[in-house]
């Protein structure tokens, strides 16, 4: 099974000092290695209990993403409104209504993106990874280390430009089959992945 050699899946961006550690021991059991040698302060994830915020760059990404998404939805509704209103007489100018709809949708989605950025916290505990989202409807989700099946790191075009990544933790559960957290610093995401990789020596068949 793949668990025998987790190092085979380490990305090339892993720092050279991490690669010679060919023994399949997870990062949490020895001093965590810096996840990337990109020159700036290396992000080392030490399991702790304080909550970390998402980086400021993520605010831009979330807001931008919301703007674009809302703009697309707004355009669809605007086109619909245009089609409906251009047939009616005495109605306000269709372009105004369509423009208004686009603006409203884009602004709302952008605000929601900002809100989500502002109210997301994550932390790496000894027991696993925990993510807290929301202000009015709050949810804290914990995925224990022993239940991680596999991990994905995705980098969309906008995220790449700002040096961010999305970490997806897969479990065998149904509701939390994939816990996805966008907007993490690329170094943080890689360090988290290394820290959470299932241990190679335990045949933890948690099913």
């Amino acid at each position: 099974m793949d668990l025998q050699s987790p190092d085979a899946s380490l990305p090339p961006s892993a720092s050279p000092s991490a690669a010679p550690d060919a023994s399949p021991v997870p990062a949490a059991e020895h001093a965590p290695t810096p996840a990337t040698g990109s020159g700036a302060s290396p992000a080392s994830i030490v399991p702790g209990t304080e909550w970390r915020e998402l980086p400021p760059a993520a605010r831009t990404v979330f807001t931008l993403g919301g703007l674009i998404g809302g703009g697309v939805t707004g355009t669809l509704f605007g086109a619909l409104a245009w089609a409906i209103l251009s047939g009616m007489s005495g109605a306000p100018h269709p372009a105004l209504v369509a423009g208004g709809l686009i603006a409203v949708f884009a602004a709302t989605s952008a605000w929601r993106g900002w809100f989500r950025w502002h109210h997301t916290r994550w932390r790496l505990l000894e027991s696993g990874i925990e993510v807290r989202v929301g202000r009015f409807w709050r949810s804290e989700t914990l995925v224990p280390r022993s239940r991680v099946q596999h991990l994905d790191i995705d980098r969309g075009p906008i995220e790449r430009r700002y040096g961010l990544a999305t970490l997806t933790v897969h479990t065998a559960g149904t509701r939390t089959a994939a816990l996805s957290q966008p907007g993490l610093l690329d170094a943080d995401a890689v360090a988290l992945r290394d820290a959470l990789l299932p241990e190679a020596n335990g045949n933890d068949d948690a099913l």
Partner: protein
Amino acid sequence: MTTPSEPGEVAPERRLHPVSWLFVLIEQLMQFALPLLVLLFTGRGDRGEFFSFIGVGALALYSVGQYFTYRFRVNDDGLVIRSGVFQKSVRHIPYNRIHNVALHQSLLHRLFDVAEVRLESAGGARPEGQMRVLSIRDAHALEALVRERTARTTGVIVGADGVAAPGAEPERTLLALDTGDVVRVGLISNRGLVVVAALIAATMQASSELFTQIVERWTRVVLGWTRELHLSTAGTVISVISLIVVAMVLLRLLSVVLALLQYHGFVLTAEGRRLRVERGLLSRLRGSLPRRRIQAYTVREGVVHRWLDRQSLVVDSAASEAPDGKRSLREIAPVGTPDQVSTLIRELVPALTWPLPAWERLHPRAWRRQFTPSLVAVLLATTVLVWRVGTPGLWTLLLVPFALWRAIAWARRAGYSSTAGVIAVREGWLSRTWRFAETKKLQALALTQSPFDRRHGMATLWLDTAGAGRREPPLRLRYLPERIARELHAFLTTAMDARVNAQRESPGASTNR
């Protein structure tokens, strides 16, 4: 086929039963049957349909041709299946990935003494291997072989029980339903609903007048009868109600017939570390499940259950749900007396004493959370009715004390329990459900708070398990005091960390009442 190959020698390649082409053809035609029939009866006989028939025929012939290329081999560590005409595929299925060998026999299968074999594994919507068809002797041999080989390979990894020699594990019947019980299954569940809905849709499609004609004729019959008794508006009401009642009775009858077809001769057997279910009247289904793959349990006791003094036990297993539902082994006790269900649970989870002696109560103000939505709904309904009908609409306010009583009764009955490495929650007042899972089977935890939760200082604890069905209630503890929710969260985190394969006790499991 009946003799497994010796380890070390190359297993011979085997083929499917010679009559498989018939079943493959039938299955292909059945996929196109409905459109074909519709085309036949409603078509106008022009050229286009002729070509579509040809297309269907070609597709059917192609799939029959596929049968001729199907070969499989029983190796020491798994099965190797080769198939394909143009796109050749070779599939290796290790034995320890096979969780269930399901046998399916319809009437036609029984006529030829063959069976369809499906090899299911954890995850994936389609079975890993599907053999259509093998002779029934070969199918049983394959089933026994997989069971033996699985025990042999997983016995090495688990190591706890040792490896039992094949055939030496005693079989015990855990539950056998007689016809009366199966009739109860039909009465309890509304099985025919989908069929009836499909029928109604079909008739309305074919001729939309047919449906209204039926309703009109019925109303005329009943109205004529009521007119003799000189009832006026009451007559219409009676005719509508009578139509509904007759429809419901017919629906339940259909449900009973379907249950008889599907569950007749239901037997739940324990063979070693597996559970096996056999059921079916015309088409026999046979599936098995390793016990340790059971993730969570649901016990249901609805209103009709209570009238008939029965409960039903459904389990989630690590295999995923198939769209047709034919293969999933979920209902290990479609009905059973509470005693039978308790015995089953004690058999499957030995550490648990069921029924649980003590349940913890929810937050003292949980009744308010249940009451407020009903109150809002009643007020809304009253407003709408008063606006429409006038003062008589105020009578709906009588529902408010009923809703209050219901909320208080619900909150008094609801509870949770965390003992003996099992976390359980019970909810429901008229229609009761118990849902529980072993702590070591939990996959993730989530703590949520809605604004209403925060107002009262409550929180909801969600416990995620693998393979939770969509029809089961989620495993969640609602309306907990926030402090208790966080304590439970911390306790469960530690309990989940205990290694599955280690033998040590999870901390605090026995001390938490």
